[in-house]
């Protein structure tokens, strides 16, 4: 109920948009290059304005956001090297379109965390919803819990590491990048993927169209061990590798009968 009190104090305009004026709250306690503020009574827009003001204008490189209250779209569009800690959970579209920050979420996140992330590091202590890392272009995204369906959909780069299990259609239409899923994955893994690599430690309910087992190489071992070492995740489990079979690459050029064989 305490969190709801914060939401109730937010005013909305006729279009349902919160805080139409773009005034920066300037409520942070700044100490050198570090800052901290309580987001309990702030709207999404105010929190993001405060973050940008601190990072772009005050020279702050390390920000802690207390009580994020699972609000949506927090920490989006940060295009600078810095550290951001969310001392709680985020709603959907958290940390989207970021380029550079190292983010630590001490809680869970909703749908589409790190959507379109360009570079940076995001570590989520809890679970993440569906579409985690959607259309991600680069950087490392570590989820210490589970992820929902279609994580890494349309992934174009970067690395998604999941210590728990994953839902169905993971890596759907994946085009580049890597996923390491230590637990089980649902149906349709890597469906219609164009490229990229998916490593799975647990059981695979079923493979999607054109997703096939790949040949393990020394480069895979080096990559997985390096990522686990950097993020202090211990020893990696035994992993299976899956890649694109590349039979659908030019399916528009195939005769309909040939396409049926592929499908």
């Amino acid at each position, binding site marked *: 109920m305490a969190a709801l009190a914060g939401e109730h104090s937010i005013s909305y305009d006729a279009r349902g948009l919160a805080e139409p004026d773009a005034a920066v709250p300037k409520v942070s306690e700044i100490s050198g290059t570090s800052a901290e503020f309580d987001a309990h009574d702030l709207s999404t827009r105010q929190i993001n304005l405060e973050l*940008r003001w601190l990072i*772009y*204008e005050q*020279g702050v490189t390390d920000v802690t956001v207390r009580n994020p209250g699972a609000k949506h779209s927090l920490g989006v*569009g940060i*295009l*600078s*090297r810095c550290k951001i800690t969310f001392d709680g959970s985020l709603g959907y579209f958290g940390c989207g379109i970021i*380029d*550079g*920050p*190292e983010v630590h979420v001490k809680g869970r996140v909703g749908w589409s965390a790190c959507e379109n992330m*360009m*570079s*940076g*590091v995001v570590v989520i202590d809890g679970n993440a919803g569906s579409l985690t890392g959607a259309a991600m*272009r*680069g*950087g*490392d995204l570590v989820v210490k819990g589970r992820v929902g369906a279609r994580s890494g959909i349309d992934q174009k*780069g*970067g*690395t998604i590491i999941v210590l728990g299990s994953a839902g169905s259609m993971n890596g759907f239409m994946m085009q*580049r*990048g*890597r996923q390491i899923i230590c637990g089980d994955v649902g149906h349709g893994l890597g469906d219609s993927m164009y490229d990229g690599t998916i490593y799975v430690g647990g059981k695979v309910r079923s493979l999607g169209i054109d997703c096939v087992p790949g040949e393990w190489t020394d480069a895979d071992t080096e990559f997985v061990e*390096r*990522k686990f070492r*950097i993020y202090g995740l211990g020893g990696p489990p035994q992993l299976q590798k899956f890649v694109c079979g590349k039979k659908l690459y030019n399916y528009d050029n195939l005769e309909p009968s040939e396409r049926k064989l592929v499908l």
Partner: protein
Amino acid sequence: MSEHLAYSEPEKIKSIDAEFLSGHRFPYQEDISLVEDVDLDAATPGDDINWLEDVELLSEDGTPAVFDRYSNSFLKIYFPIPAGRENEIARKVLITHLQSGNSYGIRLKETHCKFPQPELGPWVAGSRTVGSEWKPPVLEGWEAPLH
């Protein structure tokens, strides 16, 4: 520069590279000593090469090149690349290009970005903020239709 240029209708520009966009070639495209000292780990977030993991040496018009995603163009490399260091050199040339502010996508920021952001992105600490004063461009003599 790209050899696949044509401005007359109906033919369009088929491919563009960094030299075409900027109008000239950059020294680090021709001299490996200018990129040898680049620290890739320091240039990227975290304790790893981060997004550069996906950057590899490619080829454009038969010349070794690295793709600059921030301007959607290739940056050609004209010096001999030591065997076994192809991706490393490609990454170093790209980071040098971005840190120097020569990427066409960066050069467009001051005029066109609508929201405040560091001009040189996450590659250079303390970069100035651009985009704070953006105003919609006005086309002289044009009036919005009545509907």
